[in-house]
C-alpha cells in the first residue's frame, strides 16, 4: 500500500515537473533580444515618414502581435504550462476583441478612420 502511494506521488510529481519545465536564463535573454529588436524596428517606422499608412499600420500590428506572443508564450510560460490557463486567457482576449470590434463598428469608427 505504502509503495503504491509512493508510486502515485512520484508519478504525479514527474507529470508536474514535465508541465512546469521552464526555459533557461540564456533563452530568456534571447527572447528579450528579439523583443528589443522588434521595438527598435517599430520605433524606426516613426522616423521614416515616407511609409504609406496602408503598409505602416499592418506592419506595426504584426510586430505588436509578435511581441505580445513572445511575452505571453515565453515569459508568462503559456507555452509550457497547462493549456487550461491559455484557454481562460484567450477567452478573455477573444471576448474583449469581439465586444469592442462591435462597439467600434456601432460608432462607425472604421468608416471615420
Amino acid at each position, binding site marked *: 500500500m505504502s509503495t503504491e502511494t509512493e508510486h502515485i506521488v512520484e508519478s504525479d510529481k514527474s507529470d508536474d515537473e514535465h508541465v512546469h519545465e521552464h526555459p533557461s536564463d540564456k533563452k530568456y535573454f534571447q527572447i528579450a533580444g528579439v523583443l528589443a529588436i522588434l521595438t527598435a524596428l517599430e520605433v524606426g517606422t516613426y522616423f521614416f515618414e515616407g511609409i504609406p499608412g496602408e503598409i505602416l499600420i499592418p506592419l506595426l500590428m504584426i510586430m505588436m502581435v509578435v511581441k505580445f506572443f513572445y511575452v505571453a508564450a515565453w515569459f508568462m510560460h503559456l507555452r509550457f504550462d497547462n493549456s487550461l490557463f491559455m484557454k*481562460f486567457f484567450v477567452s478573455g482576449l477573444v471576448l474583449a476583441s469581439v465586444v469592442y470590434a462591435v462597439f467600434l463598428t456601432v460608432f462607425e469608427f472604421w468608416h471615420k478612420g
Partner: protein
Amino acid sequence: MTDQTHSEETSTGISHNKLGMWVFLGSECLLFGALISTYLLYRGRFADGPAPGDIFDIPFTSVSSFVLLMSSLTMVLALSALQRGDERNNRLWLLTTALLGAVFVGGQVYEFTTFLREGLGYKTSPFSSAFFTLTGFHGVHVSLGVIFLMSLYVSSVRGNLHKERAETVELIGLYWHFVDIVWIFIFTVIYLVPSPTS
C-alpha cells in the same frame, strides 16, 4: 514530502491560485479593451486643445517602453533564480524589476506634467480625457505591481521567501508581464500609429 507549491490537491490537478490569476488577467483584457476602444473613438476630437499628433513625444515614450519591456526579462529571471533556490539573485532581480517599473511610472508622471504645461488637461477635450484615463489606469497597474514587487523583496530580506513559495513570485510575475503586454498594445496603437494633428 512534496514541496508546498505543488502539495495542495485540487480537482483540476493544477494550482487554483494560478488559475484564478489567469481568469483575472482574462477579465482585465475587457477593462483595457474598453479604455483603448474609447480612446480610438475620441482621438480625433481634440476641440481647441492640442492634438495627439502634435503633443506625443515618441522618442521619450520609446525609451519608457523599452524600460518596461526589459523589466519583463528581469521579472522572469527573478522567478527562475528562486526556482533554482538562488535567493540572492532572486532579490537582485526583484529589486531591479521594481526599479525599472518605478522609472516607467516616473516617465509617465513627467509626460503628464509636460502635457499639462502645454495645455492638455484632463477636461480639455474628449481626446485628453480618454488618453489620461487609459494611460493613467495603466500607470496605476504598474504602480501596484511595484508595490507587490517590493513586498516580495521585503519578504525575501526577512527570510520568508524560499524556493517552496516560488508560485507567489510566479503569480506576481504573471501580473507584471500582463501589464507589459498591455503597454505593448498601447504603445503601438496610441503612440506609433499616426495620430491626427491640428
